[in-house]
């Protein structure tokens, strides 16, 4: 084994020219390309977030003008949703790990995979261009008729950028689905797939089926804005609620595009940290599929006060309660997995447990919003802002970073400083709660969202929130430092530094270009940890 391992060059050393990166077909290198570009956008969106929190530190609108503020929160939303959260786990960890986890040499369509990245970059260029030319002020939700007939900002550039990046998601989804169907190695049956692979399957279905609706909606915005075709503006004979139906038909499932992968990652992190099989594997699989499917039927919960009929709201309300059941199952199963485990609290495990806690709070507050009568008071306030940040930042970003820590030795072949990593994880958890918990309170007291200035009685809660944002920012900057350090000085990682199960830990770190010396053969289910 050992001599052969040294013979095959790792994917990192297999070509050093810029061209060998930018024209690569290797899923692992494409994953790195994505990782670098989404990190760039994460910090861009993060700067916008910092400006927002700075402005909101005082009740008066004193730092920037109302228009600048509106453009800042719009930019923050557009960038974080489409250029960071949606591609984050699927396109970096998914691209890197999915083929290895199923014992394949690459994804089914390597060229298409590279093309997806170029689409992402093209979409990103439009969005950055929009920023440089003065920004856009519609909010990431592009509600009509404001976006089509009233906004004087660069709506079209942003719409084109998001339209393009949407196709990058669609192609990734397609690629993953075909890969999982056709490229599993000998013995890798469906119910032997690691949960991360299942989550990639679920998320790919949603990407493939929901994103075209977004593309169509954006195209209709363009038609109304540029050509004056009456679709959404009542003055032209259109219907503004039609837009909201289309938009949320995509954007609710998009929440699951952001959360399903996180659930997959956390299942891997917890089993490895606990050295035990996941509790209720099949229920975990069914709940992934259940969430992906029911996710398409609940969009109307964003429209309880929008003018939607009372009866439609009742139906959407009960469906929204129902979709919480599979999420609850997952939380209980993760907890039960700890039972009789051999639990170590490395950084990945801290992130994973942090995810479970924050996701649970995000999910429970989601039930408040699913209850029509409560939603009336809470919707369009900071309660909603806090709720979805608990799911997306507390949930998805924690899981993403946990995953990056967990697979970092595999991806780079180096270890990082465990002490610093734990410190950053704990700081993130604390900073996150300090930032967003007060927003639940502000929202319950009625503070509307997207407000550049606000009544003084909400001042204290906002100061707490801004203070938390400082800690949060620090905790996001720290990993950059110790990861860069590890690239140069980190100890070499063996094949399996964590003692974790899974095909990715059987190959070398970093893996060779085609992942395995010989196609692996699978003889048992995932997480086959044996007891000490």
């Amino acid at each position, binding site marked *: 084994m050992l001599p052969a391992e040294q013979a095959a060059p790792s994917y990192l050393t297999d070509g050093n020219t810029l061209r060998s990166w930018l024209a690569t077909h290797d899923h692992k290198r494409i994953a790195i390309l994505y990782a670098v570009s989404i990190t760039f956008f994460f910090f861009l969106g993060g700067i916008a977030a910092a400006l927002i929190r700075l402005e909101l530190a005082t009740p008066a609108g004193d730092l920037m003008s109302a228009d600048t503020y509106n453009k800042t929160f719009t930019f923050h939303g557009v960038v974080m949703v489409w250029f960071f959260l949606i591609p984050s786990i699927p396109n970096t960890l998914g691209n890197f790990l999915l083929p290895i986890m199923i014992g394949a040499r690459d994804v089914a369509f390597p060229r298409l995979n590279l093309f997806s990245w170029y689409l992402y970059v093209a979409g990103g260029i439009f969005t950055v261009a929009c920023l440089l030319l003065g920004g856009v002020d519609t909010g990431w939700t592009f509600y009509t008729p404001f976006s089509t007939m009233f906004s004087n900002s660069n709506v079209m550039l942003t719409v084109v950028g998001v339209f393009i990046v949407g196709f990058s998601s669609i192609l990734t989804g397609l690629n993953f689905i075909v890969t999982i169907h056709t490229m599993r190695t000998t013995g890798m049956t469906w119910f032997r797939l690691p949960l991360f692979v299942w989550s990639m399957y679920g998320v790919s279905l949603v990407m493939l089926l929901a994103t075209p609706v977004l593309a169509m909606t954006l195209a209709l915005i363009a038609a109304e804005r540029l050509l004056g075709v009456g679709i959404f503006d009542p003055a032209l004979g259109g219907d503004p609620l039609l837009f909201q139906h289309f938009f949320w038909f995509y954007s609710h499932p998009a929440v699951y595009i952001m959360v399903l992968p996180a659930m997959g990652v956390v299942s891997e992190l917890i089993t490895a940290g606990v050295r035990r099989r996941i509790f209720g594997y099949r229920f975990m699989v069914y709940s992934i599929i259940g969430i992906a499917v029911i996710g398409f039927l609940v969009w109307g919960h964003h429209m309880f006060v929008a003018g939607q009929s009372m009866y439609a709201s009742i139906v959407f309300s009960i469906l929204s309660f129902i979709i919480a*059941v599979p999420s609850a199952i997952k939380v209980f199963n993760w907890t039960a997995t700890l039972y009789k485990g051999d639990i170590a609290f490395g950084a990945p495990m801290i992130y994973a447990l942090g995810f479970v806690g924050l996701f649970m709070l995000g999910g429970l507050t989601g039930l408040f919003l699913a209850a029509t009568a*409560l939603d009336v008071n809470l919707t369009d306030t900071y309660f909603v802002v806090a709720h979805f940040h608990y799911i997306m930042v507390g949930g998805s970003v924690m899981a993403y970073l946990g995953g990056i820590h967990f697979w970092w030795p595999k991806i780079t072949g180096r270890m990082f400083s465990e002490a610093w990593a734990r410190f950053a994880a704990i700081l993130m958890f604390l900073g996150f709660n300090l930032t967003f918990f007060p927003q639940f309170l502000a929202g319950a007291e009625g503070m509307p969202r997207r*407000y550049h200035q606000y*009544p003084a009685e909400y001042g204290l809660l906002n100061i707490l929130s801004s203070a938390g944002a400082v800690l949060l920012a620090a905790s996001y900057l720290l990993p950059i430092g110790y990861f860069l350090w590890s690239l140069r000085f980190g100890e070499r990682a063996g094949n399996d530094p964590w003692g974790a199960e899974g095909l990715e830990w059987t190959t070398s770190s970093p893996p060779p270009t085609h992942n395995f010396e010989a196609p692996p053969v699978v003889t048992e289910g995932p997480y086959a940890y044996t007891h000490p």
Partner: protein
Amino acid sequence: MNFLPEASGFAPRIDGLFYAMLGLSALVVVAVFTTMLVFAIRFRRGRNVDRSGESHRDLGIELTWTLIPFALFVGIFAWSIRLWIDMRTPPGDATTIHVVGKQWMWEFEHLDGQREIDTLHLATGQPVRLVMISQDVIHDVSIPAFRVKQDVLPGRYTQMWFTPTRPGTYNLFCAEYCGTDHSRMGGAVIVQTPQDHARWLASHATGSLAEQGRALFTRYGCAGCHDARSSVHAPRLDGLYGSTVPLADGRQVLADERYLHDSITLPGSEVAAGYAPVMPSYKDRIDEADILALVAYLKVRGTDRETPHASR
């Protein structure tokens, strides 16, 4: 909730549900966190405890924690829906106040014609129905102290109702993002005792909304076609409100506020059976406030409430 007063009939009922859910959530959080903590301590690496045994027969457990949350959810759902239906069903004795939203101000028109901008005077104990429309983009009337909120759409009436219960001055917000001055589009709701409110109404009296509408009916030339003496073949409109109108395309529609509104702005879309579609569209010639007055007038035209003050 700590500094937000409960100032409407709904507020205590909504807070009741809120606190019930808060209690339930707290219970779940504490239960899960404690379990995690106990496991984390008991089974931490390096500790010598019994870790033997696989957890294969887990169907019973899985079903338990699937069905229990499900049952709880259905219970909460039922509770919330009862409240919701009440919130969406204005009582017959509610006073109607018309609201027009535009970038970035609110206009309120009381039934007797009093107009206010960014301030709304109400009386305790009197149910109020707001009938709302926007002149441009989507806005939203939000009054947190009443726990109510409703989007205000262009081209379509939406409504909400509530009963103020506590005198005081409360925040009024626009809660749907509407451009530059979204965060300044608000004002105050002033709830008065019935006596104070009656005094306020009297001191701000102008012609009632319907009377203003009658004047507009002539000014905009509607009378030229719709009056009995007119030579144009056009419907009389007397007693139209609330009746069922047969349309030229064979459908039947209820002549409600929406129908009256659209008859003025989009006359070609629902043509009354038996008439030629000759009525011009007023869409670009009239603003929503005038349409409100016209609609108020059409609602009483030909009824015994048409003569001024007969209704009150």
